[in-house]
């Protein structure tokens, strides 16, 4: 039986506390001039917009900020900019505001909002990313029962433990989205007051059409349904699996199969709708029909990377001797296959939009391409090229070294993918990687380790009475 050593626990708690402190310090410094130095924004000239006196733009309007090459904003004062820019990305959530009569004030407020959003966005990106690590394995755990898979029986306890990692990120996501209703931040533009009231300065005709779905009440109901449904599935699958150790393995397996079947259907719908709610609604004007699957694929593949790392950690501690290179080979295959699947969906979404070149769609990618070039291309490389080249061959998947390396970079890549999904719509070009982002990652990493390892330590790592446990032990390929 695995023991969660106090040393590891202390380390995990330290990570959580340090992460929280970093985030709070980052929050306090956010928008102040010291922030810029602290966060080391070498190339993204961001915070200076906030400090600079906005009177400077009186005649310049807002066009200067839209200039794609924001790198050269770094030292220059606002006056030096010409009107090179296209208008602010027309599809961006705040376009209507900018076009209002109070053009300049609205723009200044927009800038200030973007800066104020950053701490919340940083926390949100990490929460979504860590939600994926748990949710992917919760779904995979369900699949094992529905598909009557035998090979994975020895791994189920790790998946069960990992599935519980959804709880804390879900709570954080709920809190952040409910804070949006209270206008604490402006990450979700559709939550702004008067967005669907004709004649209101915040009125936005496009969003007003969408308020049937994106209304605070309906959103809250959906968010709570996801939370309750997913956590219920994780709890039930765990409960029956623990009961099987002391009782009838076949009966409990059958029960779990029912739970898993119900959950799979529920998740088929909620994986898409939750992606629309939690991520796609940030860029409220924009939509993509396969966004849900794309988000799911990213979550699924990063959860495999985490599963591989946890399993190898346990093996390194001398546990799970029944898991050998054949099982690791399969996990490597899943990580590889879903990296390719993610790329397929990413590309399907990108190419249709790029090819059709419709203004309201293509702005989504224009902003990412102009302002987020580095993270955008880095994450494509890490999420597609690296897994393909590193774990394509059979021997590479059977050697822990290459798989661990690939898993680590896949995790980094999918964090960046979520970053590129969320940040452009909330902070615009005021992004960076500093105390806030690092703090949020450390915070969730610590909590992830605590949740997963403590639930692993609560039960034996091997199902005693699982009907297919022997098949798993002799699994070979």
């Amino acid at each position, binding site marked *: 039986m695995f023991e969660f050593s106090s040393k590891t626990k202390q380390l995990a708690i330290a990570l959580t506390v340090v992460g929280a402190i970093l985030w709070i310090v980052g929050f306090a410094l956010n928008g102040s001039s010291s922030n810029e130095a602290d966060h080391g924004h070498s190339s993204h000239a961001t915070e200076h917009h906030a400090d600079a006196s906005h009177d400077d733009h009186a005649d310049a309007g807002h066009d200067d900020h839209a200039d794609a090459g924001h790198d050269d904003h770094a030292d220059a004062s606002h006056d030096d900019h010409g009107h090179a820019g296209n208008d602010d990305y027309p599809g961006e959530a705040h376009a209507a505001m900018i076009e209002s009569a109070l053009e300049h004030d609205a723009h200044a407020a927009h800038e200030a909002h973007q800066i104020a959003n950053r701490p919340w966005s940083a926390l949100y990106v990490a929460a979504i990313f860590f939600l994926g690590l748990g949710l992917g394995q919760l779904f995979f755990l369900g699949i094992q029962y529905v598909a009557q898979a035998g090979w994975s029986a020895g791994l189920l306890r790790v998946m069960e433990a990992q599935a519980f990692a959804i709880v804390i990120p879900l709570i954080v996501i709920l809190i952040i989205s409910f804070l949006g209703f209270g206008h604490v931040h402006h990450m979700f533009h559709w939550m702004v007051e008067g967005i669907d009231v004709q004649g209101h300065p915040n009125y936005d005709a496009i969003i007003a059409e969408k308020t049937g779905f994106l209304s605070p009440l309906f959103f809250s109901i959906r968010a709570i349904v996801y939370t309750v449904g997913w956590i219920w599935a994780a709890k039930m699958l765990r409960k029956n699996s623990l009961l099987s150790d002391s009782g009838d393995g076949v009966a409990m397996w059958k029960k779990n199969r029912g739970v898993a079947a119900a959950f799979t259907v529920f998740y088929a719908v909620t994986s898409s709708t939750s992606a629309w709610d939690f991520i796609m609604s940030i860029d409220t004007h924009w939509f993509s029909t396969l966004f849900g699957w794309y988000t799911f694929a990213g979550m699924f593949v990063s959860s495999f990377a985490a599963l591989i790392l946890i399993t190898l950690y346990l093996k390194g501690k001398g546990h799970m001797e029944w898991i050998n290179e054949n099982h690791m080979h399969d996990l490597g295959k899943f990580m590889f296959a879903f990296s390719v699947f993610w790329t397929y969906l990413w*590309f399907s979404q*990108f*190419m249709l939009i*790029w*090819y059709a*070149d419709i203004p309201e769609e293509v702005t989504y990618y224009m902003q990412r391409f102009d302002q987020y070039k580095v993270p955008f291309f880095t994450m494509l490389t890490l999420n597609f090229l690296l897994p393909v080249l590193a774990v*394509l*061959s*059979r021997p590479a998947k059977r050697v822990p070294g290459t798989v661990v390396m690939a898993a680590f970079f896949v995790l980094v890549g999918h964090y960046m993918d979520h970053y590129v999904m969320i940040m452009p719509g909330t902070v615009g070009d005021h992004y960076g990687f500093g105390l806030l982002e690092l703090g949020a990652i450390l915070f969730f990493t610590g909590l992830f380790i605590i949740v997963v390892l403590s639930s692993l330590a609560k039960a034996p790592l091997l199902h005693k009475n699982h009907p297919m446990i022997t098949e798993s032990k002799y699994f*070979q*390929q």
Partner: protein
Amino acid sequence: MGHTKHNPIVRALFNDDDVVLDAVKDLRANGFSVSEVYSPFPIHGLDEALGLKRTRLSTAAFFYGLIGLSFASWLTYYTMIADWPQNIGGKPNAYWFINMPSFVPIMFELTVFFAAHLMCWSYFAVNGLYPGAKAQNPDPRTTDDHFLMEVELEGDEAALTAKLQELGALEISKLED
């Protein structure tokens, strides 16, 4: 097919893949040399049990795929950009790379096409399969529901026969070389 040595061959027929697999392991552990197993379907772990070298077909497939990718890149470049520049939907066509996203489906398909086809041809070539090639399996039942094992006879024939019977062989016959 392992017939290069001048040892006579003993053939044993089985009707279960697990039994064959265990028999191969047992025989090889006891110093017999199993030269071939005929089976209607691939048996998991048999290649390792027989001590076969891993196929290099997968490495070849990677390079076949690269050939396909290069061919597709050249094809799209030549037909869409160089020879007769195509303006489809106002997409940029000044040089290949800026129009590359619209060529990705072609590149993907031809990569798969080349890898799959060349792998098949390689497989046929390596195994000597061509139209009109003579069947090499000694017993037609191995294409249905039986498994045939060929063991080289190096010592006592009675001992080997007894061993094979103990391991579950249904029929045992000796092939004089």
